[in-house]
């Protein structure tokens, strides 16, 4: 018999995870609006793979399947991973990434609650290192591609690898705004000119900036529901803003404006959904600030000076390594031991 409290707040891990999934919906809706329904295919694919891998790993580890399968954590990993990779990615890419995330990054470390790294970001890192070319097939937003694929054509490509005859892959896909910026900067074009290209919108990429707006909406919901605290989004976005701002002030021709960095790539997804993963993140308020600030700085450094177009995933993983240290050094003072225990 357990001798703890007899009453508990009606809350559960699965309810929390479900709310996070709900919070992703505005972003996903805008994604579909701007890029077509292909993303729904990879989300579905990733979800099925995640649940199947989770069940298999639980069986192998001799753990009860039902309570863990219904905790929605595998689904969340799947969705975050699916949103991080190109929607036109071949089906096996999604499957391999998700299966690796769930089996290696989550279960080999002890399953729910024990993974030191964000599983979705591990999955992303594995994919971008192993299959870099497949990870660049981002769809062009509505009205920008030379040709627009029908949903059936997209399905055919995802599952069969065939495009309708006469259409080249390059015609339907495009590099991401961050990627384009990077390659164009290497051609010595000034930022202002690059951002005048058709794929760029008011702040960052056309379409992608709106998806980022959707993530902000979802993040606001999470904050309102007290699923996440303000510390991580504020510190992450703040550091990214300040770092980008400093570089932009030094040389506006070479470094894009801070608002560009906030709305481009996975910054908003990272701020509200990836870095806020409690399991692989720090627990103390001060630790959350340090963790997210570090991630914000690293994201900028990787984006601008690193070899990869976006830095959120690697910044997250690098900061995940520091979590035990951050936690150990940011323990808040306990009751009565704060500066003499006075007011």
């Amino acid at each position, binding site marked *: 018999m357990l001798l*703890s409290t007899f009453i508990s707040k009606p809350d559960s891990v699965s309810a929390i995870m479900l709310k996070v999934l709900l919070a992703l919906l505005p972003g996903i809706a805008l994604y579909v609006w701007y890029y077509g329904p292909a993303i729904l295919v990879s989300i579905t694919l990733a979800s099925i793979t995640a649940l199947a891998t989770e069940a298999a790993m639980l069986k192998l580890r001799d753990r*009860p399947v039902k*309570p863990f399968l219904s905790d929605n954590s595998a689904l969340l990993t799947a969705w975050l991973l699916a949103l991080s990779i190109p929607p036109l990615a071949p089906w096996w890419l999604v499957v391999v990434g998700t299966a690796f995330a769930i089996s290696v990054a989550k279960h080999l470390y002890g399953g729910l609650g024990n993974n030191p790294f964000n599983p979705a970001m591990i999955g992303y890192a594995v994919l971008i290192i192993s299959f870099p070319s497949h990870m660049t097939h981002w769809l062009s937003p509505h009205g920008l591609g030379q040709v627009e694929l029908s949903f059936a054509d997209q399905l055919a490509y995802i599952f069969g690898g065939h495009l309708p005859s006469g259409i080249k892959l390059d015609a339907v896909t495009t590099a991401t705004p961050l990627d384009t910026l990077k390659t164009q900067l290497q051609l010595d074009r000034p930022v202002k000119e690059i951002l005048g290209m058709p794929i760029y919108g008011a702040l960052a990429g056309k379409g992608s900036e709106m998806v980022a707006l959707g993530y902000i909406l979802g993040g606001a919901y999470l904050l309102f529901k007290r699923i996440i605290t303000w510390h991580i989004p504020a510190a992450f976005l703040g550091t990214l803003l300040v770092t980008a701002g400093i570089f932009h002030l030094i040389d506006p021709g070479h470094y894009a404006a801070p608002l560009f960095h906030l709305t481009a790539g996975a910054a908003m997804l990272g701020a509200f959904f990836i870095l806020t993963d409690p399991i692989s993140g720090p627990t103390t308020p001060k630790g959350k600030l340090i963790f997210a600030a570090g991630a914000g700085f690293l994201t900028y450094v990787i984006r601008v000076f690193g070899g990869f177009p976006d830095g959120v995933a690697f910044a997250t993983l690098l900061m995940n390594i520091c979590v035990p240290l951050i936690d150990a050094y940011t323990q808040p003072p306990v009751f009565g031991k704060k500066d003499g225990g006075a007011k």
Partner: protein
Amino acid sequence: MLTALIVMSGIALVLGAVLGFSAIKFKVEGNPLVDKIDAILPQIQCGQCGYPGCRPYAEAIAAGEADINRCPPGGEEGIRKLADLLGVEFKPFGGGTVQKPKAVAFIDENLCIGCTLCTQACPVDAIAGAAKQMHTIIAPVCTGCELCVAPCPVNCISMVVIEEKITTWKWKYPVYALAPVRRSAFGRAPE
């Protein structure tokens, strides 16, 4: 080149002198490792490890002659601490040692003939009594080593297991299955 040689030799000389000086100045008497091991051992002095007391066992461990898993009164926690201290792997009890519940000796005062054999055997002077006088155990200092049981010629010493009282009761480690927990039937003591 020469300067570098002189500097390096100079540093070596100074450091060597400091080391030599501190070796004499801060010389540690005895073997501190033995003390550290002895501090972990429960001091029951029962000899179950095959050594005549805790300190001899500590010395044997420090000398690498004895295994760390021969001390039943110390429990697995004790083995774990020794393993931590010595930087070796934890291992379960071995060498024919078994763990027993904690107990104290009890002398049946009707049978005791006052032979003092038990007082001579007691490693912690926990038995009061003189020759031809009835002996009795000073229970609070008895370590439960059982060394007095065997020497008694009239078998008047028995070991009494210390029962759990409310004051010594410990909260149990929460054990739960990943299936909904049902309450124990009403009126019965909780599991």
